[in-house]
């Protein structure tokens, strides 16, 4: 089992340095949920289909992440609080290349 380190700033501004497994077929949204860094019901609402933007996050480190798919691109174009570095956590599949990744969760849409 191999874990990578990820730094996640939650919606309250608190920084969490966590271990994320690369061998559990998890995405970043699921990692956030497994550590309960955002209240249940406020993140991953569509379950990871890129059909809501509840897992939107801002990528702070300069990791070379996979390109956005059309679905992710389309969803982000309708989301709010979107920035240049916005990604949907559910579309970021945890792998070794993400070691040291730093992200900040976007505010909850109210």
């Amino acid at each position: 089992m191999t874990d990578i380190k990820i730094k996640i700033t939650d919606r309250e501004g608190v920084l969490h340095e966590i271990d994320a497994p690369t061998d559990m077929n998890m995405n970043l949204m699921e990692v956030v949920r497994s550590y309960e860094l955002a209240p249940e019901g406020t993140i991953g609402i569509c379950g990871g289909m890129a059909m809501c933007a509840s897992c939107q996050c801002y990528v702070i480190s300069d990791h070379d992440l996979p390109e956005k798919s059309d679905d992710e691109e389309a969803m982000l174009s309708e989301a709010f609080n979107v920035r240049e570095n916005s990604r949907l956590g559910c579309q970021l599949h945890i792998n070794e290349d993400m070691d040291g990744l730093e992200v900040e969760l976007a505010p909850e849409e109210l």
Partner: protein
Amino acid sequence: MIKTDILIIGAGPTGLFAVFEAGLLQLKCHLIDALPQAGGQCSEIYPKKPIYDIPGFPEVLAGDLVDNLMEQIKPFQPGFTLGERAETIKKLGDGTFVVTTNKGTEHNAPVVAIAGGLGSFEPRKPLLQNLADYEDKGVAYMIKDPEIYRDKKVVLAGGGDSALDWSIFLADVASEVTLVHRRNEFRGALDSVEKVQQLKNEGKINLVTPGEIVGLKGEGKLESVTIRKTSNAAEDIHLKVDEFIPLFGLSPKLGPIADWDLEIEKNAIKVDTFDYQTNIPGVYAIGDVNTYPGKLKLILCGFHEATLMCQSAYQRIFPDKKYVMKYTTVGGISGFDGSKKEAPKAVVKAID
């Protein structure tokens, strides 16, 4: 006043299947849902996506699962109040409940089963400071009566099917239609995208992409919007409009149920796993809307919860009646519509 045995709030897969299980016990159901159609998330968010963990279905599209459930419960003649959101609950002297919707429709039942999923679907509202000031004064999130846009200057925002389809429709009704979307690509049926392209070429739709509405102005009612095309605010477009229709899809909110004095934990309703009853006797919560130790938000778990809930509801409605669970293979299905389904008899003919 609509009267029924089990009033189900939420017409997603769990709520629909509860109708079947209740029907086997000869209990009638009525469902309320904020969406205009049954099926909940399955119909609204991902009708064309496959599900692989419905027992007995190696693969089923969410929309097909809903169609199948509707077919399965048809003999039990469920009633529907669609397009209305359950707003308040009141307990009467006789122990039954009255649930009233946002449109004032009243429902009376001895048992209420909340199968509300993640809550009712509400329009996603763009983050504009004074947006609320113009609601119903030029800003609407849904088009109820297209006629009110006749000969008006209308601006729509969004990049999905509803933004495209309404732009097409209103092109013939409004005096001016502007569609603003943050990027050049649209996510909608190809037909709709092509039609908007054609109307744009004909000058019937004014398309602004990439662009975003960043400001609203007007005294007492909406008079103009500010459209930002680039990061340079000096290049903003100030467009005179009568109506602004943001169409950014729907997102679920627990909504008024949160104020029903139910025990809530992690945006879900706490239940006893014996029968999925809440802290209010006679009010149950099943499916994604509930929580308990070990909870999994799966459709198949919702089916199980619905089944046990119905047994408890039966005992509650008929405390003195004895009841033994019967297999459908043995007992068949007797619909309220007089229909009867049963297994064919196995003995056909004697052998000499």
